[in-house]
């Protein structure tokens, strides 16, 4: 009886912690301005990122349009909105709670797993990224005539790869939150910088076949590569150079690499946490 009660309390505590974290995220980073500016905040970054690629292509093509190439660029860039928006939120939560709100130590000593709290804080960002993803694709379809046909999209594959993709994102995010624990305030830039590094090796905006051999090898063990590829395949219907031709094989590799990366990420987080505690960095405010 007592054990059952304890179990109930634990699961209730977990849900409570998640819910409170989601609510807090909305209060601190969502509910801060008028809805118009907030809309711009959600959409400005992903749309700009996609348009940078469109203009780069225009410069190269001399203004001629190729919907297949543009489709490749825009779907990759739109999917990247999830990575950019969600993954960066983990280290940002650590840094803002430590440096700006000075709340990290109090949240940390609460009787929940800190990782649960971090996941809760990142959850609203998934919703925001989903809006950005949809709007970016819609702009691509309406203005750039990229070849997406609503009836021929493989929605089931899209849903499955997205869900697994979120798990890998959380894995990366947790590891970077661990890094933020041991880094100083300047680590605000870390999420942007890491995102840039992953941008290079995940085939988000160019086929991985263009990469030098060792970078191509790295890209093959990153689950995000398969997530972006499967998203492209489910939306556009064609595969990228250097990827398995079967969607099922690609999905299987996505699952395996997600499990591997997430496990390593959680271990990395705990190692960082250990160092942060050892060096007394959990409540250390820095700045220059």
């Amino acid at each position: 009886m007592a054990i059952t009660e304890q179990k109930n309390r634990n699961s209730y505590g977990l849900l409570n912690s998640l819910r409170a974290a989601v609510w807090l995220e909305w209060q601190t980073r969502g509910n801060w301005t008028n809805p118009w500016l907030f809309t711009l905040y959600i959409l400005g970054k992903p749309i700009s990122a996609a348009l940078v690629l469109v203009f780069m292509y225009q410069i190269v093509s001399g203004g001629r349009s190729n919907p297949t190439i543009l489709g490749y660029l825009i779907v990759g860039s739109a999917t990247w909105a999830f990575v950019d928006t969600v993954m960066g939120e983990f280290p940002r939560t650590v840094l803002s709670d430590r440096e700006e709100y000075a709340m990290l130590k109090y949240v940390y000593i609460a009787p929940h797993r800190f990782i649960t709290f971090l996941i809760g804080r990142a959850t609203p960002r998934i919703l925001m990224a989903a809006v950005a993803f949809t709007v970016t694709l819609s702009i691509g379809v309406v203005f750039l005539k990229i070849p997406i046909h609503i009836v021929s999209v493989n929605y089931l594959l899209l849903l499955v790869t997205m869900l697994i993709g979120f798990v890998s994102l959380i894995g990366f995010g947790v590891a970077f939150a661990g890094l933020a624990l041991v880094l100083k305030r300047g680590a605000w830039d870390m999420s942007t910088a890491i995102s840039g590094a992953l941008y290079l090796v995940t085939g988000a905006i160019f086929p991985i076949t263009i990469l030098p051999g060792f970078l191509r090898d790295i890209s093959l063990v990153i689950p995000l590569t398969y997530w972006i590829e499967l998203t492209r395949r489910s939306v556009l219907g064609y595969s990228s150079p250097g990827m398995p031709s079967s969607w099922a094989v690609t999905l299987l590799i996505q699952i395996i690499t997600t499990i591997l990366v997430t496990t390593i990420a959680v271990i990395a987080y705990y190692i960082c946490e250990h160092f942060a505690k050892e060096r007394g960095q959990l409540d250390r405010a820095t700045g220059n």
Partner: protein
Amino acid sequence: MTAAHMHADSPAIQTIDVRRVYKSRSGFTFGGQKAGKSVTALDGVSLTIQKGELFGLLGRNGAGKTTLIKILTTLLAPTSGEAYVDGLDVNKYVIPIRKKIAMVSGGEQSGYGILTVREQLWMFAQFYGVPSQAAHKKIDQLLEAVGLGDQANQKVYALSTGMRQRMNLCRALVSDPEILFLDEPTVGLDVEASRIVRNYVRSWMQEQRGRTVLLTTHYMFEADELCDRVAIINHGQIVAQGETDDLKKGLQEHARFQFELAEWAPAFEEELKQSRGVVSAQSMHQKGKVSVQIALENEEYITSAMQTISSAGGHVLTLRRIEPTLEEVFMRLVGTADDEKSAGEDEEK
């Protein structure tokens, strides 16, 4: 008014009917703006602090102490009224005032964790135009004086709260200000660190004539120990000001004494109550001793009260006057002010 204030005899600080109202910002919606609220932090504050005084401003959280300090340190504009620092209008002579003042707040986390204590102090000395060599000399002196001599090359983030606050005090003094604002400077500090801060403030005042300190604090004993004069602020209004002894005396309606007797007889109390000038008498039996508290119309009646006890066969072992503490003064005044306010509000309703 301004011209009249700009001479050597002008008070260190003067405020005349200063009011400050904060207006909270409104929020946004798709449909437009929500209305904001306003809060009166200071409501007609008039104070005069002479040069060379260590003046205490006492009040609860939110009473208006910090707001007044912000106005005097040129960080905040008064909504109405006048405020002068060394005779200079805080609205007009911002830079000349800033050359004369410094401030330390309790619980300060200012500065850069990555710098050493010496570098941090040097940086602030530069903002006041102190040449580097002179700054380093002064920094050495100050750090020694507050017991941080061996921490000069320690990074700021590695300092304890007490050390950090002592460093903040050095930061304020490195520019050699004439008027120092201390806003709850010992809040959160341990006994030793608090004592170091208090002792140094006192010795800094004594080093040179004319130095002035405005101290806000929650700790009544601190104000009692340090201040020449105090003011009590409540709901943005000064409810009392003067020397601490005068305030205490003002609180006492009757002179109160306590004495211990070797033995007790019930008749003593009756005799005392009938004695001339005695307002009340109350005996207490504790740990085999008898102590009696009496209230007299005037302190001169203590002689006749003692004679009454002797005549009745009592033997007085000890006698002391009961002084009210500053805390009692504070509680009485702030409590009264609140009672009056709530009574007023009731009447309005």
